[in-house]
């Protein structure tokens, strides 16, 4: 079996969803003939036609708002936002409308829609292309916020997101689009969108990460194994709603917790996880909860992006600090 990249996995999930449900409509900038700037919609236009794979005008707020109307009108739009920094105009539509339609009409109208957008740094992209906005969306009630960390999880989580009835923001780490590859089947199996995934079991410390930080955490875990530290690695995957139980149970076992994300420290989703761990596993904690995150700076342009981005070495130092508490 040949390996599938994460961007190919996204394409496979989109094609699968469009095949099994004719209500699924893909829309966005350059998603048609061009197949998307990252090629996530490659081949869909030829296969499903211009009605269902729609190039929109350059209109991010429009993509968000029209998806809401489409969803309330009986379709299942999967919108692509071209680059991470272009997602912000949608916050109005997602916060004020998509996440509220079911509630404010007491179930009469719903918004089963998925907004896919690239996220994160590490590919030397231009300005405004390397953002990590997940915490902003995770603060919105009624929304699901998902960040996959591997081709298989991207495939399964995206399928579940599209099949579900809730509005979803699905953030795809650009670094993993081609940086992550594995053997996988296009078997139509989805994954739960309310669970964290324990990727590696360990005894001494719990590493909690999502997106492109998951491979870094796994790298640290492998390297620190040689130093005699047994690290458990959790891929949060779905930030909202959060499966705090899996994280808390892990920390109850290990007694130490290191949370990793690319987004800035202050107000980052790591703070929420730290609070949940403090509430749920306080008496098990052997060391202060550590956070390894982007800095509270503007995401640097490409020359400095690797200084900003957490990596296995920085995670390792946090593990050492936590392990210093015996």
């Amino acid at each position, binding site marked *: 079996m040949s390996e599938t990249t994460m961007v190919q996995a996204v394409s496979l999930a989109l094609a699968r969803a469009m095949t099994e449900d004719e209500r699924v*409509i893909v829309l966005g900038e350059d998603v048609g003939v061009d197949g998307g700037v990252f090629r996530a919609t490659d081949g869909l236009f030829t296969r499903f036609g211009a009605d269902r794979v729609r190039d929109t005008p350059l209109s991010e707020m429009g993509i968000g708002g029209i998806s809401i109307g489409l969803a309330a*009108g009986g379709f299942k739009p999967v919108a692509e936002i071209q680059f991470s920094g272009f997602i912000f105009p949608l916050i*109005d539509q997602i916060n004020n409308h998509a996440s509220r339609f*079911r509630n404010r009409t007491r179930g*009469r109208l719903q918004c089963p829609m998925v907004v896919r957008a690239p996220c994160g740094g590490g590919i030397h992209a231009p300005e405004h292309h390397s953002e990590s906005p997940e915490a902003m969306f995770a603060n919105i009630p*009624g929304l699901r916020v998902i960040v996959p960390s591997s081709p298989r999880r991207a495939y399964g989580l995206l399928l579940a997101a599209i099949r*579900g009835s809730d509005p979803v923001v699905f953030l795809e780490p650009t670094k993993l689009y081609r940086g992550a590859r594995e053997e996988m089947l296009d078997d139509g199996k989805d994954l739960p969108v309310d669970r964290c995934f324990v990727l590696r079991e360990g005894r001494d410390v719990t590493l909690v990460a999502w997106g492109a930080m998951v491979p870094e955490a796994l790298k640290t875990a492998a390297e620190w194994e040689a130093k005699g530290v047994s690290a458990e690695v959790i891929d949060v995957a779905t930030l909202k709603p959060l499966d705090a139980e899996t994280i808390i149970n892990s920390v109850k076992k290990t007694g130490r917790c290191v949370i990793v994300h690319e987004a800035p420290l202050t107000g980052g989703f790591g703070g929420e996880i730290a609070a949940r761990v403090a509430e749920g596993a306080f008496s098990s904690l052997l060391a202060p909860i550590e956070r390894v995150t982007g800095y509270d700076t503007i995401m640097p342009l490409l020359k400095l992006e690797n200084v900003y981005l957490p990596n296995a070495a920085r995670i390792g130092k946090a593990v050492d600090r936590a392990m210093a508490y015996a």
Partner: protein
Amino acid sequence: MPHKPQNKEIIVNSPNIAATFEIDFTRYLDPAGKLLKELPAEAKDPATLKSLYRGLVRARAFDTKAVALQRTGRLGTYGSSIGQEAVAVGAASAMLADDVLVPSFREHGGQLWRGATPVELFLYWGGDERGNSFAKAPHDFPNCVPVGSHALHAAGVALAIKLRKEPRAVVCIFGDGATSKGDVYEAMNLAGVWKLPVVFLVSNNQWAISVPRSAQSAAQTLAQKAIAVGIPGEQVDGNDVIAVRTVVGVALQRVRKDQGPCVIEAITYRLGDHTTSDDASRYRKDTEVTPHWQEEPIKRLQQYLTTAGSWTKADEDKLLKEINEEIEAAAAAFLATAPQEPSVMFDYTYAQLPADLAAQKQAVLSSLSANLSQAAE
């Protein structure tokens, strides 16, 4: 009332012409209710005009009662549509049941026409989400408070209709202030490119809270914003319900034949405050408002009907009695409606209650039952 713009003449006189446009203005009844030109065939039947009159009076009765309920602490902040009832009523009267109304928040007359009940509208403005259930207008969207953001929903649901090749149409109503917003432009532009079955109806009541129309846009008309996105734009006298119904009706016929969207700017006037929380005397003088009372839509149609011999004092008394009884009964039913269970706030957040929220819901339920047992002691 604005006059037909002179753009065409100005541009035609130019030696190099890239494009020309003109904006039509339609009116059948002048402010005194005098017929200016022959009524369109659809409006010739007195029964039609009487039903329109009833729709206007019903809207005003609802507004009046809603303001009274707010002033006595039994309704939340409320935005009356007094003076501009003909825009929503005229549009709704041109629509079919399967069409979709995507309103702003001052279209009570249109919502009532289409089957939303006064009880539902009182519930909504009284702070109860069940008021958006619209059991008899199940396709219609709820009110939209973030100004103009719903224009995109109208385009989206129009796309859904077009993809299913249904002979239905969408009417989206927003105010003059909304036309300054980017989302409204994006909606019009998308609708133009995709030739969507949607009519954008601008209820230009001349005021966006305290900002007058003149400070909202340098454009000569708001209808001409359509021209920039390549779709037709025109004006109508928004206080002439016959004109609104006719112009929207013609637009809907085009839309149903897949001939594309349009923008209609209805010229009206907000006779009241922006909402019950507003005091318009802070920014506009009574001397500005007073003349507009001579142009309002209800008196205008009443005068026409009376002059035409289609309406008598007895008809008026009977209608007012009937409508007042309906609105009073609705208000009583609203006031008698048992409140929602507090924990219902959790139940429609997701399709299925996530574990995280289930725990929060349980906390609310426990604290409520603790309060109850405390009260019992």
